[in-house]
């Protein structure tokens, strides 16, 4: 039997964990502290699946009706 994961669902956008380097680069580019990004719970089903821990930043790539593809970042909180 094939195991089901919510990541395969078409309404779940792609979530990517940022590396330390990418994280630093992003925060520098936006000139912000990590908590000034929107938050996502570590207990969020997708965050759990990709192994996000508090303090991490998740990059979300989703389909957008206006831009085709849009990027958002979430700061992982407990």
């Amino acid at each position, binding site marked *: 039997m094939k195991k089901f994961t919510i990541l395969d669902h078409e309404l779940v956008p792609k979530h990517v964990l940022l590396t330390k380097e990418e994280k630093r680069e992003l925060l520098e580019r936006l000139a912000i502290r990590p*908590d*000034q990004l929107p938050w996502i719970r570590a207990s969020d089903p997708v965050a759990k699946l990709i192994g996000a821990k508090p303090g991490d930043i998740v990059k979300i790539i989703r389909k957008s009706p*206006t*831009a*085709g593809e849009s990027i958002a*970042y979430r700061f992982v*909180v*407990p």
Partner: protein
Amino acid sequence: MPQVKGEVKVIFAPSKKIKGITFGLLSPDAIRKMSVGSIITPDTYEEDGTPIDTGPMSLRLGTIDPTQKCKTCGNRVGQCPGHFGHIELAKPVVHVGFVKVIHQLLDATCQKCGRLLIAEEEIAKMRQMMKERPRLWSILKPKVVPKVVKKAMKTMECPHCGEEQSKVKLERPTTFYEKTKTGERRITPDVIRARLEKIPDEDYEVMGFNPKLSRPEWMVLTVLPVPPVTVRPSITLETGLRSEDDLTHKVVDIIRINERLKEQIDMGAPMAIIEELWDLLQYHVTTYFDNEVSGVPPARHRSGRVLRTLAQRLKGKEGRFRSSLSGKRVDFSARTVISPDPNLSINEVGVPVDVAKTLTVPEKVTPWNIDELRELVIRGPYEHPGANYIVRPDGRRIDLRYVKDRKVVADVLAPGYIVERHVRDGDVALFNRQPSLHRMSIMAHKVRVLPYKTFRLNLCVCPPYNADFDGDEMNLHVPQSEEARAEALTLMLVEQQILSPRYGGPIIGGTQDYILGAYLLSHKTTTLEREEVERLLFMCGKTDIPRPVILKPKELWTGKQVISALLPQGLNYTLKASSCRKCRECTKSECPHDAYVVVSNGELVAGLIDKKSIGAGEPESLFHRIVKDFGIAAGSWFLDNALKLFLNYAFMHGFSMSIDDKRLPEEAIKEIEDALKKAEDKVSRLIEKYKRRELEQLPVKTLEETLETMIHEVLSNARDEVGKIAAKYLKPTSRALIMARSGSRGSILNLTQMAAAVGQQTVRGERILRGYFERALPHFKKGDLGAIARGFVYSSFKKGLSPLEFFFHAMGGREGLVDTAVRTSQSGYMQRRLINALQDLHVEYDGTVRTADDKVVQLKYGEDGVDPSKSDHGKAVNIAKTIEKVLGVAALE
């Protein structure tokens, strides 16, 4: 540090920046400390009218009497800030605002030792985090604290001293009970206070409080501050009688009961009497804070009026926040009824002379304007281009109404003076109509001073304001500084707002008669004589008349030629007009109804100009193209001139509608009757089938619902068909039809309802079934499912409705009215909340959308960074139109 810059000494005052505000509770000590004295007398004035020194109107609490000096600070009315007093309560009372917190605290802590009912180790763990990782704690706090408190409230045995706990019950508003094995026992405020005192600071912190700002026992009052008289001034009525503020009344009540209670306690009165007075004191203190607590009868004035106490001063629409802080009143503003004036520019507003003589603009006197300003001063406040005030360089104002010889004042005028002159033609003013739902609800206009008493505006700006002239009033504000004027002119001027940020399209544009005029003028049968063409074009400032298309026997021009003269050179454009009949296959420029507009290099080659071309709020219209490709100036020229021409052509042509416009020939009426009969038969066949249970059930629907849906479908098809018949037989010269086709007013649906049949009436989207048991009206049989019994109206408005049909129509109509009333109030509330939530969002220079404290909301505005008002109906680029523009119209043919 003083710095010398030339002659002027600039002093930089030491300044401090506010980092934050904390709110806390006043401790009894703090209340006594800020008080100037105890207030113990429940009376305001002596017989001779002097305030009683120990009463609530004491002169020590400040003064509101211009003849008196404050006994505390020695200042007079404007200077004295007012001072607090206090009342020592004979017995403690609960503060209504904190009963919920008190309840939680009592339930979560031990009755004996006062500790939080959580294991020691757990408390220590949290305290450690608090100390070592305060940032993390501040994030976790809102989530952890409620959990901890909830857990503590459930614990029934103290983990610290082992004492068994009993549940505390709160009986609103302010009474607490304890559930013991023997039954319920009341806990009085002094017991509550004693228990709260026992809670240690350490445990209090774990529950999310800051003991430096609030100790729990402070929520039970032992001392009550008496506010300064300046916040509760008394009013002297015309009769000479003094009327006290509601708060003063309440303070008097509290003092009176407090003193009585004190006496009884001192006398050693029985507990029952004391408790009664104690409860009364609790009542007065409660209503003093909030006179709308549920479960408490509101305190009333002797006249029976409900008192407005502290909470009422702050709460709601008339409260301090919404009325005094968010809603301010302003000077330099005017309000009156509006009326139309198509001869004004869209950027103008007509201002009545009377208003112009009251509103002023401060103008600095310079060598270049001194002569002109002298003239204005001499003309004075009562004649129009005049002046009302002069401000001397020392800041003194001279009111020109009281100057005997204005010539003398005019002579002393010199650079450095300021003249507050009347508003005059060309001044900038902000014009507004409520409800101010979007940016375009306040726009800058240039003033045109006009006779009569109404504000006047060009009809093209009605759509953004949502204004009509059935008695609407609007507001006018006159900016007073150079910066404000510059800002208004560059950002808010009407022509800057033609393209709406709501969607990519012009929100300002033609309506009603403008569209009708354009339609009639662009009609292929319209021909004009020289005089008419000249009259029309001259009013737009066009002096070169095109060559007539017909020379003999008379020079004649087509309407399209006139319109072409108004279009900018180089405009290439095609669109389907509003009058398009949606033919199965569009023949484009060959359209037999002339409903395909073709503009080639500024020449209107084919097509009727109607709503789709020049209407307000029509994206991708001819007018939108002009604004986008030729700029705002061209757009505003088009509105001021071309649309005026269309309107004047409508005047020239003349247009009136009559009942005959809806008259159908005999055969049409016959055909309509047949169609309706057929539908009726179909309905009764469906009902038969349903009764025989032969009806095929639709998925996810019951049999009854299936029948309803099918009947609904049959009847609405019938009305559509009837509409088509009516449209077919209506004379093409029918004025109503012309209005509907051009989109200037009314729709084909309105027409069919007038000419053929009104159709099905609905309530809540269903055929009408309400009023009686299993029937809508007693005129029908119970369970009658037929068309007539369930609100189908066979008659037309022209023919008139039968009494039963009329009743059904009224039912449907009322629902519409109720809906709009409910919708406006609901959407108004939603709008308020949205605006409050979103007001500080802004786009940073890096393109990100951020909140006031620089939190990121979007990485790019709208995810694509497109300004909707500069977009093509929401899209960043419109490829089809771009190709058309580059290659010219011919390429698309």
